[in-house]
């Protein structure tokens, strides 16, 4: 599903954000991407959505060489990827339903499709009863669930989550990871960048550790080393 080959990203402001990174994530895998702040986790995720292009190396997503895509082909790539980013907030002046529907509307989905798909996505994350609520009426965990529904509604092949539990209490964090695991069990590949060592250690999935822009560890059923926390 995802292949990075000798990828270097240099923003030109000091040390490269990523240095000769090699990584393969198979279809249906669940990967925790861990590492201290500035290790290159967000940069790696942005490479996959082609928000940035590598200075060197190649990136493949779902069989497409992302680095060689024309600008006009990028939207098609992104329709394969669901993204839950910490800074990608819900739109405050729209209801939960409208926030999720927005994703479909911008890709030209008909209102019939919107009516069909939005409840399914909200149901999956348990937010259907609050479909008419505005983001200000939701807790942090609920907002994150809506963000997850927004990413899921396009039925992505790959789900990227950048610190999705960053501001949540332990119970809500657990709920979010369990949701991600459930989505993963349905066939979606999930890559989750996190600082939360309790979650990583509790769920024992594949762990890829980044440090100073390099992959220093890649373990199946790995744990979070406490010195990172």
């Amino acid at each position, binding site marked *: 599903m995802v292949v990075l080959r000798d990828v270097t990203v240099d923003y030109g402001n000091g040390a490269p954000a990523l240095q000769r990174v090699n990584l393969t994530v198979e279809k249906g895998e669940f990967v925790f991407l861990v590492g201290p702040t500035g290790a290159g986790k967000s940069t790696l995720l942005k490479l996959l959505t082609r928000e940035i292009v590598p200075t060197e190396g190649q990136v493949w997503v779902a069989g497409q060489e992302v680095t060689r895509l024309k600008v006009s082909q990028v939207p098609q790539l992104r329709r394969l990827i669901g993204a839950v980013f910490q800074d990608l907030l819900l739109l405050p002046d729209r209801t939960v339903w409208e926030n999720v529907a927005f994703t479909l509307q*911008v*890709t030209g989905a*008909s209102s019939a*499709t919107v009516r069909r798909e939005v409840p399914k996505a909200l149901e999956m994350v348990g937010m259907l009863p609050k479909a008419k609520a505005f983001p200000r009426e939701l807790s942090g965990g609920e907002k994150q669930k809506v963000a997850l529904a927004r990413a899921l509604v396009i039925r992505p092949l790959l789900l990227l989550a950048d610190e999705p539990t960053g501001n949540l209490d332990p119970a809500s964090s657990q709920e979010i990871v369990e949701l991600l695991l459930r989505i993963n069990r349905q066939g979606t590949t999930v890559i989750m960048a996190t600082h939360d060592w309790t979650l990583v250690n509790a769920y024992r999935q594949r762990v890829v550790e980044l440090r100073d822009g390099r992959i220093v560890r890649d373990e199946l059923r790995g744990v979070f080393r406490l010195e990172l926390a």
Partner: protein
Amino acid sequence: MVALCGTNCAGCFALSWLSLLAFFLTEAWINLRRHGVATFATVFTVALVVGLWGAFALLVKGAQRWLLWEGAKLERLCVFLKPQADEQVAHRLQERLRRLPQVIAVRFVHREEGLRRIQQLFGDTVPLKDLIGHNPLPHALEITCRSPQAVARCAAILKKMPEVDEVAYPAAAVKRFVQLLGQVRRGANVFSLLLAIVAFALIHNAIRLSLYGRRNEIRIMQLVGATVWTVRGPFIAEGFLYGVFGGLVALAILGGLRWLGLQTLEAGYLRGALEAMVMDADFVQRALALAVALGTVSATVAALQLVKPQ
């Protein structure tokens, strides 16, 4: 990926486009409401541009209609004879003029009749003859030509005749009036153009403001696979709506002013001209097209400059 019906049929394609258009307009409407003051300023400027253009278009139209109504008079000219020319000279000239190919009819107007006509204009309160002491008017001939175009040629022949003192015809005044109107209209067009540049700058700024206000939406749109034109769509739709509302406001103002004029003006040339300034379907279409073009083109330029593929 969410497919509409599982195939890429033409119906799905059309439905997809319609859904996008509805989405663009909805988003644009949300934006207009979000930035009330900027929206008002932009719509007002568009209305001013279109209103100014429309006012002069109507003015010219009114003048042309009025000229058409008064067409019969345009074929007439009046020849004032020299003071020493008596009735016999006048009748001889009348006979000669009847033989001219451009002329249909020639009517002799005695100097006393001329004075009576002027007296009628002033009413009976001011006895002109008593005031002046004598009748200063010469004998005159009223000539009806075959067409308004023949009047100028006929006048040129008449001016060369020794008995003739002065040739007066409304066509000359009308010609000067139309020329003046044309100059004013050209001036107004230049002013409209300057205002259009102001409107362009305002719309550009309004779109920039919208972009700032919608940066989260834009990031989401880009990340979920919206094409660059889908991202630009709501902003272009916003410009379109500026145009539609600006055009409608301009039409409402013009219509309102015309109605007010008709309510207050009494019968006469001004009222006649105002009645002739009909805001028909063609005028409404052209005014709206101008407003929509101004709004949409400005917004498209802004969107092209400010929303880049990412």
